[in-house]
């Protein structure tokens, strides 16, 4: 959190990030306010917010910020802090997608969309059923590989991924 505060010191609260965000209508706290709250030390409110969980990594806020603050990176940092403190998002599926993605990559070294899709949604039958016809419609129109590809060095990759967790950046 201190690292984040360091990066947003120069924020002038102009609000261009809030209105640039494509999902601003779905946010409970506007981004500008979120930054203000971090600065003022309201960490609890910040981490409870769903604002940063909605980040699409579109970088509109970053390129428009008049102080060149890397807001996207700050949104990423907030995810990480939340997970460390075990604060989970309102939208459980979002987190499940992320976890599924990481799981697939951990096993195969690469992502395989159909499997990731399944792992993300199988715990949410309602959603799953809504997506199924779309998925089938989609697959019919495409030539796809049916099985995931496992990279040759996947065991080592898994090992060094774990090791990377212990370095300090």
């Amino acid at each position: 959190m201190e690292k984040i505060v360091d990066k947003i010191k120069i924020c002038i609260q102009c609000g261009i990030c809030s209105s640039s965000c494509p999902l601003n209508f779905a946010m409970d706290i506007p981004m500008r306010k979120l930054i203000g709250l971090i600065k003022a030390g309201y960490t609890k409110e910040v981490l409870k917010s769903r604002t940063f969980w909605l980040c699409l990594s579109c970088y509109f806020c970053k390129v428009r910020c008049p102080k060149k603050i890397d807001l996207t990176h700050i949104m990423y940092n907030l995810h990480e802090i939340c997970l460390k403190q075990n604060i989970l998002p309102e939208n459980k599926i979002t987190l499940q997608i992320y976890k599924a993605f990481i799981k697939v990559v951990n096993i195969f070294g690469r992502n395989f969309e159909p499997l990731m899709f399944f792992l993300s949604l199988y715990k949410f039958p309602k959603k799953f059923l809504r997506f199924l016809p779309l998925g089938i419609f989609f697959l019919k129109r495409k030539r796809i590989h049916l099985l995931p590809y496992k990279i040759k060095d996947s065991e080592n990759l898994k090992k060094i991924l774990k090791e990377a967790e212990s370095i300090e950046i």
Partner: protein
Amino acid sequence: MKNKEKIGVFICHCGTNIAGKIDIKNLIQKNSGKENLFFFDYPYFCSEPGQTFIKEKINQLNLTRIVIAACSPSLHEKTFQKVAQEAGINPYLISCANIREQCSWVTLDKEKATEKAEKIIFSHINRVIYQEPLFVKEVEIIPRVLIIGGGIAGIEAALQIARSGKEVYLVEKEPSIGGHMAKLDKTFPTLDCASCILTPKMVEVRENKNVKLFTYSEVEEVSGFVGNFKVKIRKKARSVNLLKCTGCGICIEKCPVKVDSEFDMGLSKRKAIYIPFPQAVPQVPVIDRENCLWFTNNKCGVCKKICPFSAIDYNMEDEIVVEKFGAIIVATGFSLFNPETIYQYGYKRFPNIFTSLEIERLLSPTGPTSGEIILKDGKIPQEVAIIHCVGSRDENYQPYCSSICCLYSLKFAYLIKEKTKAKIYNFYIDLRLTRKGGEDFYNRVLEEGIEFIRGKPSQIKMQKDGKLLIECEDTLLGKIRKISVDMVILSTAICPEKSTPFLARILGLSLSQDGFFQEKHPKLAPVSTMVEGIYIAGCCQGPKDIPESVAQAGLAAAEVISLIDRKKIEISPIVAEINEDYCSGCGICIELCPYNALEYNSQKIKAKLTPEKCFGCGICVSACFAGALSLKNYREQEILAQIEGIL
């Protein structure tokens, strides 16, 4: 070498600036008793009592050399040179050790700082032993002044100097003087008409016999030094004889070519032969050769046929004028930020989005709409948005505050409300209305019911109905607002004039981080530059409003008048010296010298130095293998001694 000189070392505390980091007491204790070295310290040596203290010590102990350990020599070297001179020591027998900017302020550790300070001081003690007395020379100042830029700052400076009886050359690149101020409608916060106050001054420039006006001209080369600058001015071919033309305007009437008017920011048309605006000085048209049919197709020629005074001259060529000047004032003003680079604001992509200068032209009674605020389709806007800080205060474009946009935005709000009764929104980040009368004006604008929204709009979209939708967070309410308006005004930033880097190069000036000319000192020498005899005034030094520009112009004029009235000026004695006995006549130095101060003497087969032409860079000295050349005050033994001391 055994030191026979009595050296006084004066260490300044500079309050706590130096004493807070450097253990001066210890430093002195450690070194006192060394032969012929006398250490003193004092809270502020630059103060009057501090200077007296130095003088007293010099006289008491018969000191012959002085080392001042204090702030950067850029700040007070001159002060202490004067002190030495008054006490009877040659000013070039002192040396200034910089233990503030380059020691106490940049070092965290006290011990290390003290150690470094000691080394720095001893390096100067080493060097001062070798220094030699030098004597300044005097040269005459040419009582003629060059002013580059004919905007309000240039005009004001020219008039002030001309009134004092000195000759002024005013060079303007456009066909008329007047600059940006001539384009403005009313001026904030008093709302008096810009041209009503500017035109009389422009007329005075024309009438004053001491002012030589060079419109449609540019400065190309500058050489020389204070008191004696040699300048090459290019008078671009106007194609109209300035002496014959009476400004009747019949040629303009008959010219068949129409192009966008630069003066009206492209909102109206002008002819290929044109006078930029009705009050222009001089009242003589110019032919725009890029668009004139005679020059592009070798056809037409109507203007020449019709001119009753045969003032049109298609064969006119650029004229080069070379003249000498005692001083130069640069007043080249600014250029307006081009908001096209901010994609999300849609300038030029959507209609009815204007920059501030375009709005000035729309508001002006002599402008393209005769002062009416209308949309592209001729309707009167019902809702108008004014976006502040477009391109200013933005690291992606211009990081600085453009200083005047807040007040001119309020002015637009007030004037447009008055003319159209439209609902007006101001989108701002911070309101900076620090000028005299600023707050009163804000109150007046608030009373008019103009809305202020604190937030930087993220984008402007075109709607189906042709209206413009502004998306913005109202940061005071914490709500995302979408406001649809008929017209958007972008309060665009003030940028350095495009010729600024070129002028900086030929004049030898430096630029500040923002790209404007760098002044010598931000507080105490705001219009002086590092080059003696060259001054800056107005927006070329940084964004500012009319009163500030006029004030700077006045100060620059006063500086120039005081300089010229001195009649003579001392020039630095730090020049190269040649010992012909050592010169092998290889000629390397002659090629390297940037000022042609060295010549080849073919009779003696040796290099010949003209000290008056030398600027003291020392390039020749370090290239001379024979060691025949040396640079006064920076001779090899002086620097080598300093190296020995500092390591």
